[in-house]
């Protein structure tokens, strides 16, 4: 399983709107699964907005994304690094 380490770009962290957008993008990668978590911890299913929000990841934190689908991984990595609160 390939992985990427990304710094969270959204100013509110992975809450509310950014979390919703990231989980929607992860769900679109089905049937592939995308896992998200802090470095060194087990990742959770990124398509679950509830699990994603329960991580309580703040702006500027590093997260690790992992998936078998490289293209999905690239898309998610870019999304997580973007400030989604700004748009």
């Amino acid at each position, binding site marked *: 399983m390939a992985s990427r380490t990304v710094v969270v770009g959204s100013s*509110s962290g992975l*809450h*509310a709107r950014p979390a*919703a957008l990231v*989980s*929607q993008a992860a*769900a679109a990668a089905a049937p592939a699964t995308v896992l998200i978590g802090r470095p060194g911890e087990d990742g*959770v*299913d990124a*398509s*679950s*907005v*509830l*699990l994603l*929000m*329960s991580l*309580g990841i703040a702006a500027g934190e590093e997260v690790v994304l992992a998936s078998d689908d490289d293209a999905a991984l690239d898309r998610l990595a870019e999304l997580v690094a973007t400030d989604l609160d700004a748009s």
Partner: protein
Amino acid sequence: MSARVLPGVGVGRRAVVGPVVQVREPVRPASDAVIERDGAPVPHDELPDVVGAAFATVSADLAARAERASGSMGEVLAATAQIAADPALLTGTRKELSTGTPPVAAVEKTIGGFIEMFTAMGGLMAERVTDLASVRDRVVAVLVGAPLPGVPELAEPSVVVARDLAPADTAALDLDRVLAIVTELGGPTGHTAIIAGQLGIPCLVRVTGAGDVPDGTRVLVDARAGRLVVDPDDEDVAAIRRLADAELALEEDTAPGATADGHPVDLLVNIGTAADAERAAAATDARAVAGSGLFRTEVLFLDATAAPSVAAQAAEYAAALAAFGGRKVVVRTLDAGADKPLAFATLADEENPALGVRGYRIGRVHPRLLTEQLAALGQAAAETGTQPWVMAPMIATPQEAAEFAASARAAGLTRVGVMIEVPAAALRAEAVLAEVDFVSLGTNDLAQYTMATDRLAGQLVDLLDPWQPAVLELVATTARAGRALGKPVGVCGESAGDPLMALVLTGLGVTSLSMSLGSVPAVRYALRRHTLAQCEAMAEAALRAASATQGRAAVVDLLTEEARRLLA
């Protein structure tokens, strides 16, 4: 079929006819309730599919409602739909099922776990708790085959009936399709009634038995008479239609507020935000509505987690002042405490908050809140080139009035007043008025404090009636002081919007009336049909009456015949 009449307490004056839509309470089945499909219990190995289908049904229903809803309501519904479709909820519930947990308990336990976690995390996460609880109640309802709880989607203009409406329920209403709101609980100065009043939607509260009227039943909601007519006959309906037509005609008159013989009374509107100011200013001209007699600034503070900066406040005040151009705007300084707590200035738990540190008294604990607010208003005045009026709430003594006047004038404000809502201030109105340029009577709080009756105590509404002669006596004392000193005395409580009370207040010597925008046409009409001498006779009758009911009845007798048909 004969009509059945359920009495209640009306808010507003309009009457409407429409079908009932009941807001349903969530079902609370036993946690081990047997799930049936097609009349037979679902076998254990099929439960995961049935539960999955329940989540899918709820998500699809919410998504479809989000599509049809507009603006922020659509976004809220879409976010809730996404939660209902969340894979973590389904996975968690199925895991519970596999260990032998019964279906209802499995749903409640899984979603309950997230609710606990998000509540503990606080802040933004805590806001999702309402959505999670709503998803839980919906999925449980679908599982046991009960109707979906909460505010149903309104397919046509309807009368919304509930035991009680929480603020969140009100926010979820599609207001374009709400003809009226009827509740079994609540009071006329409670949350639902105030929101309905501001939106101009007729509302009845404290209607026992309203919750038993079946969905789709045609009802007549008569806010003015305080009655809910179930299955009204054609004659009832025709009478209501005639009144509605007459009310529409009233709105076309936009002459300045004055009695039939030309005694001027400023007609003003109550606002809470710059957006309210823009709406009211755009809908009227300076002749029809002379400005705002109450700008409730606490709205700006209530949702804030920290005190807004002077610059942020100044921008909001400037926008409101600019919207009204040269019209009069009376800004009330922060009226927090009691039923309006502030996140950033929370006071130690008070035994009796209505009698505690609220209104102007907040300055004893947080003096900067007031000085910064006055500074911001001074900046907004300079920036817009307007001269706002400013007043402090909950003033009890002439000394407090003098202190406030000194602070406001130091901030460059020239028209300084105080509210009269504490009986002590009304009894010493002349001494209070000597310190300031004007006063404004807050009749809701004045009634609460005069009658020693909590505004939120629904079962005591008769005591809280602004027609109570003792309350009117204090209004009369205050108005007399205004006349003696030649200074304006306004009323900005709910009673200013009642056309009959408006006549009485004018007769007592009140010089301006501030109300919700929707109340202005009927008040203008009432004033234009009666002379000042007639108003004075009505005031005299209301003051002399033995009770609130008798006082109002005496005023009805003194109305011109046309006005009685339209207003009584």
